[in-house]
């Protein structure tokens, strides 16, 4: 099995986890909706990396197939998200997510 993956599995997962946490921090901290979407994209790619590494461990193609799924999902999500961002900038005159926070109990 080792011929398929000469880098230890843990190292790849540590990198993927670091990417995931970076993205999550970005989603929580950033106020500009474009940066929030970019951070989401980083999280998606962290999942893709984890899947590729997991697939390499078992020498199966499944991990890479899941990665392609994730790419397609991310593209579909961004297509809709950018439409929403356009409308946000038009109706709220701002890309700041805090400006779109009018609903409260």
């Amino acid at each position, binding site marked *: 099995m080792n011929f398929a993956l000469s880098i230890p599995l843990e190292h790849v997962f540590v990198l993927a986890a670091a990417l995931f946490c970076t993205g999550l921090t970005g989603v929580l901290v950033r106020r500009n909706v474009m940066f929030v979407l970019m951070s989401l994209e980083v999280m998606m790619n*962290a999942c893709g990396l984890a899947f590729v590494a997991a697939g390499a461990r078992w020498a199966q193609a499944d991990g890479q197939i899941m990665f392609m*799924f994730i790419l397609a999902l991310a593209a579909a999500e961004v297509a*809709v998200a950018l439409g929403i961002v356009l409308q946000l900038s038009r109706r709220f005159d701002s890309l700041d997510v805090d400006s779109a926070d009018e609903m409260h109990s």
Partner: protein
Amino acid sequence: MSHAWVNSVMPHLVLTAGLMVLLLVVAFRRSHALAMTSTFLILVVAGALIPHSLAAGSEEAFGLIRVDGYGQFFSGLFLLAAIVTVLISFRYLDQRASSCEEFYMLILTATLGAMVMAVASHFATLILGLEILSISLYAMICYPQEGRLPLEAATKYLVLSGVASTTMLFGMALIYAASGSLSFSALGQPVDNQSENYYWLGQGMLIVGLAFKLSLVPFHMWTPDVYQGAPAPVTGFIATVSKGAVFAALLRYAVMSDVLSNASIALGISIIAVGSMIVGNLLALLEKNIKRILAFSSIAHVGYLLIALLVVAALDDPEIARETMMVYLAGYFLMTLAAFGVISALSISASDQDTEQLADYRGLFWSHPVLAAVLTSAVLSLAGIPLTMGFIAKFYLFAAGVQGALWVLLWALVIGSAIGIYYYLRIVFTMTQSESTDGSVRANAIPVETIVTVGVLGAAVILFGVYPTPLIELVRGLIGAFGA
């Protein structure tokens, strides 16, 4: 690949083909009525093919999906919810968007995604169905052309749902790394000690992601805002189809992968369940907006439903859990759709926001007696009053919980329901009060198809509450004859 396999996914195929047809129809002729009628027909045909698909045999195709009585029951429920949504959206959208045709394609894609989740037995199909459903919902939420609240709701849902999906995906990658399989049934135990950590961390992340999607406490913060901001027919669709699909998939996953045999996972889910029942009901007491009340009520109901999930581990008998889940969700679908149907009907000619303040509902019993009666039956059913569907559903849950000896959860269920009665009855009480002075909401006439739709839903809530045998026999027949 055999011929039987094609027959067993016929409803899904019809929905997909119908979507293409609708796309072409809209390209050549833009007509709201035509788009609505064709969507209605596509959904009805897909629903009519469900018995046919079951007769084709329950086969696990490519290890990706498993078409059985359990999955197809939920597919039928999702199609029913979609039909109701189509009927109540028609006039509502007419007032709010200049081109409404694409909305019906989004309903079809969202329903297709939910139906894929109902039969998914593999991580790839699960995430694919979930994303088809969620991405369609983002666009449906912000469909009205005016107003800022739908857009705010769509943005919040987009970001939080994205975070939930990635959390689930990362969990799936960890489980795959530890067990070497993406299929629910082959998810073995982790191969070695080092993999064990990956495996349980992955299961934890997967459950957190699903809890986000189900809006369980402590991941519930987005729910009231999305429910309030989304157009009322779409809110009804989210409350039923999106939650039902996640639950259908979650129970199948729990049964096939045996994840609940781990004591700490089961304990974590129990804590989430108790928290959702209590917190959901308590926060609903503070609200004066009926959509937000129903949002918190849905958090509580999803908490109740987790009892059915935990019965799997407690009893080691998935049949009881399946039956409870199917009966409860069928009831929950009917009463929630009835409630949001009434809200949509009253909001048809409301300007910027829906008719959602409790004060707007004063005197409804005199101005719109039918709508008031339907809303009363829906709300009483949500509270679990006898002679309504909600009572039968809660009784089922209670019986299953007693068999599984889940005493703490049952106490939370009793306390939660007791708190709930207060705010549910407040809605009924408001409708009997004398009418507010302006009465602007009342003046408008309600279209016939909306009255008939919500009337049928309200009648079904009472009818199945008085005489639930047909539903229970259907559920038992589907589980018994077509296996799982």
